[in-house]
């Protein structure tokens, strides 16, 4: 899934580089809230873990083997912001030291694997958790669904990038179909491994699973007369940042996903009703591109001309959906959050 140099044209590479830099900058600031001053060693070790786990091959079928990408897994285990940092560092090291993924494509790779899979995996996991019973074991199916969806969504974002700055004249429909098909399969593998891995960690150290924070029942003490009573609240922790930052990633991530989807759906809307015309246009463009010194940039233009007006409508639609979502989220959060989350996270600190 690593994108090499020359896959996307220079402007797209620079643009995704900017997106990646902004994403990592935000993650750097937010990760402090997840791991405080322990960020460097813990994120470093988690990055080494992701790096190692990507080497863990499992047989898929005849002669082929797959391996984990780890975006959703890292998000569930250490929290989305730290996970973005870990995955970005893994990609940076792979690009610089292992020539795995091109240097000009580093931004693209970070945007796709480091940010998209992590954010989608996290948002979906939280969404599924919201409807499941509030106990640590719920994290297992939730993380599996998160991993399942994160992979094809990253593939779709790749198709979108390819539509704007790809160096090929593939039919977008065919590319979308094949990317989606393959990556849904990969996603199933990712989901199975992520779920099983998370379940193994939840069984041993549930306090280490970031997504399971606040899901553990409050500590009950058995009194002398045999009745159960809630344990007295422990002294306030000096660093109480555990339950922070659960709303914003959801909002930002959801927005990104929705915008990406809106773009893709609008592409379908514009190209599918008239496939023949689309192909003809593609060929007409080919004739032009050959006279043009910068064929790549002409293709970028082509994508914009076709996509923007529809895309704007899509973005407006997303804005409405986001507004509705925010209201809904506030309602749900207002009901479940204050007592459970705060008390739960304090218990977890005590356990640790």
């Amino acid at each position, binding site marked *: 899934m*690593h994108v*090499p140099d*020359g896959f996307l044209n220079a402007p797209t590479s620079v643009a995704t580089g900017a997106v990646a830099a902004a994403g990592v900058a935000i993650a750097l600031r937010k990760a402090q809230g997840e791991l405080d001053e322990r960020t460097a060693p813990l994120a470093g070790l*988690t990055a080494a873990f992701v*790096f190692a786990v990507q080497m863990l091959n499992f047989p898929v079928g005849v002669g082929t083997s797959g391996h984990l990408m780890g975006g959703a897994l890292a998000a569930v285990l250490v929290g989305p912001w730290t996970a973005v940092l870990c995955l970005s560092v893994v990609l940076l090291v792979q690009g610089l*030291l292992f020539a795995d993924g091109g240097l*000009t494509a580093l931004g693209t790779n970070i945007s796709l694997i480091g940010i998209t899979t992590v954010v989608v995996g996290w948002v979906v996991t939280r969404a599924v958790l919201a409807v499941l019973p509030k106990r640590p074991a719920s994290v297992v199916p939730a993380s599996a669904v998160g991993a399942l969806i994160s992979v094809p969504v990253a593939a779709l974002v790749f198709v979108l990038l390819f539509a704007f700055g790809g160096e090929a*004249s593939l039919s977008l429909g065919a590319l979308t179909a094949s990317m989606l098909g393959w990556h849904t399969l990969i996603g199933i593998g990712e989901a199975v491994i992520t779920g*099983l891995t998370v379940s193994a960690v939840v069984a041993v150290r549930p306090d280490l699973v970031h997504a399971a924070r606040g899901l553990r029942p409050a500590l009950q003490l058995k009194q002398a007369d045999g009745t159960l009573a809630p344990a007295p609240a422990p002294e306030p922790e000096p660093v109480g940042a555990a339950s922070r930052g659960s709303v914003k990633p959801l909002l930002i991530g959801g927005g990104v996903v929705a915008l990406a989807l809106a773009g893709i759906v609008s592409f379908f809307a514009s190209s599918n009703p008239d496939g023949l015309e689309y192909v003809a246009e593609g060929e007409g463009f080919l004739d032009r591109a050959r006279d043009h010194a910068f064929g790549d940039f002409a293709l970028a233009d082509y994508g914009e001309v076709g996509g923007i007006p529809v895309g704007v409508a899509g973005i407006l639609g997303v804005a409405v959906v986001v507004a509705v979502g925010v209201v809904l989220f506030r309602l749900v959060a207002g009901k479940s959050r204050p007592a459970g989350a705060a008390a739960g996270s304090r218990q977890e600190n005590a356990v640790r």
Partner: protein
Amino acid sequence: MSGGHGHGHSLYRVGDSPVHRLPAHVKVLALLAFVLVVVATPREQYWAFGVYALLLAGVAGVAAVPAGVIVRRMVVEVPFVVFALLMPIVSQGPRVDVLGLSLSEHGLLTGWNILAKGTLGVVASILLAATTSERGLLLGLQKLRVPDRLVEIASFMIRYADVVAADMRRMRIARESRGFEARHLGHVRVVAQGAGALFVRSYERGERVHLAMLSRGYAGAMPLTSVAAATRTDWLRAAALPLAAAVVALTAVLA
């Protein structure tokens, strides 16, 4: 993403060539500029890519990196070579017959484009990794204003990648010595439990590392032990590659 990971120490080839002596941040910038020039070169100018390859061969010669090493490490590009080879078959547009196969003209061009630019990028990165120590590379990143926190995470990752990989290897040996072998998809559960255990071990190791750092006076930032300063000569030497490439690219665009 291939099996080549985890041999961190063998990537850097100790040497004392002019390329080895250049400060890492200068080299990273030169590499980035070179690859950008390559990516921006119009694909129809086939000769330009040949010249780029010669330039890289020249750098490899100066750095005394044997061709065999470069070729062996080029395995990482196998997945996208497959993709590039598929392009002529799945692309649209006018078709030509090559050896009885109906191939898309534009697809051939695209496949060539991905193959040429991707390969040049991979070889350039291999040269950087072969002539720059990991420690130097991290210092170079710091010098390039990559946020300290990110550099710290990267340095911990590089430091412990081998440790974690060795941990994983021991767990595999333990599984295999008990007669387990992952043969089909049903065995994925065992492998995943291994991954879970590996995470717990890695995270706990991180906690111990942090405590060890605290007890040695860590106060939130790693001390900078050495600063590699770049002289004007360094910059000029490193600029030779991207400048030569830029001349080629300009000629190619104007041709």
